């Protein structure tokens, strides 16, 4: 009797638990999906592109007339803030904050793809990009009440020395001086026509000399942007309050709080619950939930983040160009996009940012197993080709598994080496790897390619060392003739396409989950969006 009781009870409980799992994981009109793989995915055909264009339904540029707006906004962050110093870090979550709190000399308009005045109203160079004169905007106030002067700009650039994320800019400087109170002269060591574009990056934000001198830690949070830092606790939240005296005009809300919610499901639920108004980078598996929720919008945009395959060209067997070509033609990128990115990506045809100056369509590598086998036969006449592929993260592991399966068909054995982000970063920088699957974003200026192709650069995961490429880049950055400049960049891309140190795979689409009717987000393909003018309709 007792034994029967136990058996029946155990069976009933197991059934209950299984049923609860299914209920907890399924979608409903008001519920969210739990973090279980294999549940419903969104229909790629539903995605719409949100731009900072008032004519679009999603992410309107300005608030609709007569609609009351929320005063207190919140955003769920996937990664945490660790500093308020613009010169110590440059990544997505920090640049959200920096773009709201600070201004740079120059602004890049993502709609027109043109440079616009920001703290500098005009800039010029008379010697092919070696010397720049920036004229500053009058009457710009810092959060501490100080007025922007040329000395603040000089101080900012001199401070870059030795900092984590700005030092590489400082190393390009020959001198920075204040010509007068509102004019700055910057002289570079080498001519660089991309310099004004580089002045749009948040890590070049202009700081208040007085604020930083008085308080080297908190002073770095004093900017000229429409938002100022109110309080923060790293790993928990950062709260901004409106700066009414901003030269850009007051923002559309009173407070904006970044909340660190690393767990994807919890961040989505916070959005559905109304605890946050914006959800940074929702998980791919949850995009359908956002689309189906009548209270939410899913803003999608053409992301500039490129997933790629890199060969360590300085190490066997990846130093064999025929093997690299065999891999390039043996990979079916369309299948990889369909599975690893769940269809939310665009095939890359050149190892260059699609939004980067000088992009040239090299056509990519067609999926051609026969051609791949021909190259493999040249590389390994007796067979036995093996290659280690180092990866980190779930999506890239999926890519690696697909590559492993595809290349097995043509006779290459792939060994997947999985590391965490710190491990892969160090391993690939040191050159311990044979190949890896990695990702990166591209800036808008053509010379951005230098960091991924320059020998000794930590980002040059292929350890590619071709003097011809560096020569082309050096010529391009100082070339004032547009056509010639673009030709140099075209040759760089053709070189990379020919010698295959990298195989570009796809640019992942970007997504932001927001409360319905949210707008005013200035979308950057790099995903470092500007939320300065964001607005959210009140309930």
């Amino acid at each position, binding site marked *: 009797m007792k034994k029967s009781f136990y058996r029946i009870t155990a069976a009933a409980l197991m059934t209950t638990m299984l049923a609860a799992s299914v209920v907890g994981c399924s979608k409903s009109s008001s519920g969210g999906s739990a973090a279980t793989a294999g549940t419903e995915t969104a229909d790629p055909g539903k995605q719409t592109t949100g731009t900072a264009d008032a004519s679009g339904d999603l992410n309107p540029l300005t608030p609709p007339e007569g609609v009351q707006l929320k005063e207190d906004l919140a955003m769920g962050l996937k990664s945490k803030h660790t500093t308020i110093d613009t010169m110590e870090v440059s990544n997505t979550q920090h640049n959200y904050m920096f773009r709201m709190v600070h201004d740079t000399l120059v602004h890049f308009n993502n709609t027109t793809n043109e440079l616009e005045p920001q703290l500098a109203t005009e800039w010029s160079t008379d010697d092919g990009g070696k010397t720049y004169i920036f004229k500053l905007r009058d009457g710009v106030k810092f959060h501490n009440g100080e007025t922007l002067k040329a000395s603040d700009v000089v101080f900012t650039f001199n401070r870059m020395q030795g900092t984590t994320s700005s030092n590489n800019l400082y190393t390009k400087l020959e001198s920075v001086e204040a010509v007068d109170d509102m004019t700055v002269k910057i002289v570079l060591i080498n001519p660089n026509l991309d310099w004004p574009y580089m002045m749009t990056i948040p890590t070049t934000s202009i700081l208040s000399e007085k604020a930083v001198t008085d308080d080297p830690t908190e002073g770095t949070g004093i900017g000229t942007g429409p938002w100022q830092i109110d309080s923060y606790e*790293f*790993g928990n939240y950062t709260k901004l309050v409106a700066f009414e005296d901003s030269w850009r005009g007051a923002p559309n809300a009173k407070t904006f709080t970044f909340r660190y*919610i690393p767990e994807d499901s919890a961040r989505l639920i916070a959005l559905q619950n109304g605890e946050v108004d914006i959800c940074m980078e929702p998980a791919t598996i949850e995009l359908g939930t956002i689309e189906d929720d009548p209270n939410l919008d899913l803003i999608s945009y053409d992301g500039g983040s490129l997933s790629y395959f890199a060969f360590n060209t300085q190490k066997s067997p990846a130093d064999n160009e025929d093997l690299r070509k065999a891999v390039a033609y043996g990979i079916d990128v369309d299948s990889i996009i369909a599975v690893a990115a769940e269809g939310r990506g665009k095939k890359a045809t050149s190892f260059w940012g699609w939004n980067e100056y000088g992009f040239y369509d090299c056509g990519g590598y067609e999926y051609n197993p026969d051609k791949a086998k021909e190259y493999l036969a040249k590389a390994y006449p007796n067979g036995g080709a093996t290659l280690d592929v180092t990866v980190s993260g779930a999506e890239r592991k999926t890519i690696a598994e697909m590559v492993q399966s595809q290349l097995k068909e043509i006779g290459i054995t792939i060994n997947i080496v999985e590391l965490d982000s710190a491990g892969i970063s160090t391993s690939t920088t040191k050159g311990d790897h044979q190949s890896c699957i990695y990702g990166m974003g591209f800036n808008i200026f053509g010379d951005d390619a230098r960091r991924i192709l320059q020998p000794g650069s930590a980002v040059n995961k292929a350890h590619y060392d071709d003097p011809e490429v560096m020569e082309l880049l050096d010529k391009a950055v100082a070339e004032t003739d547009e056509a010639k400049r673009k030709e140099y960049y075209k040759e760089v891309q053709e070189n990379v396409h020919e010698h295959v140190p990298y195989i570009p795979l796809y640019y992942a689409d970007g997504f932001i989950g927001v409360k319905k009717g949210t707008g005013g987000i200035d979308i950057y393909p790099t995903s470092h969006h500007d939320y300065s003018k964001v607005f959210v309709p009140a309930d």
Partner: protein
Amino acid sequence: MHRYIIKRLLMMIPVIIGVSFLVFFIMDLAPGDAVDLMAPEGATTEELAEIRHDLGLDKPVVLRYADYMIGMLHGDMGVSYVSKTDVFSTYVEKLPATIKLSFASILVSILLSVPLGIYSATKQGSIQDNISMILAMLGLSMPNFWLGLLLIIAFSLNLHWFPSGGDQTLSSIVLPAVTIGTGLMATLTRTTRSSMLDVLKQEYLRTARAKGISEKTVIMSHALRNALIPIITIMGTQLAGVLGGSVLTETVFAWPGVGRLIVDSLNMRDTPLVTGSIIMTTILVSIVLLIVDLLYAAVDPRIKAQYATVKRRKKNG
């Protein structure tokens, strides 16, 4: 008693040395360091080498450990590689959230487990006893992560009774505390039941009943007090475990505690912050276990007598 306390405090020193040694060297074995994650994209290998040199990461691990321990002797736990903030103050900033959550979780566990354990013991062998034990085991069987998400979906998203995460409001603590407390329930319930069963068999309780004392008083005043030692032991070790940081729960609920701090620091290879946080946690856990031991003396006079000094024992013959 004082000698016992001092002895226990002194015993922490070799524990701290051992823990710091292990953490330091294990972190060094893991591939990668903080520099590649911190450095800007496009940094050259020379620039990385310079950052490594500034942080002292180019020194042999033995020298780095020696530097770290010398700093510890001066009360300096170092500075985070990533945020450049003082390790001690960073840890202390997160500690109140973890302490709050730990105590709340233990309270939930006690509120659920002790009554269930007592009830189960008084109904030994009955269907109520079996159901109680199954309920207790359910709490242990459900993965923390999964339960937390289910509670969020049910009580936050659907019912809007509690926030889904963070620690902005007083009610924020309820769901994470229930998540952790439910997981602790099984052991505490079974221990309470087992301990009560031992005590309920004692002759003196028969005497108490014969004297006309109500059953409720017999159970709660006489039996429970004598059953408390094992219960306190389990509670103490559970509290120590939760104080170490419930990483999964803190992540699901975006609770800004020590557990998440340690995991984030591990992912960033922020060695000073990891080492300092683990040392601080070790000290905290040791103090909690000491308090648990001292509580025994408060509950059981026989144990208090054992803490008496040799001199007093000799004096008492």
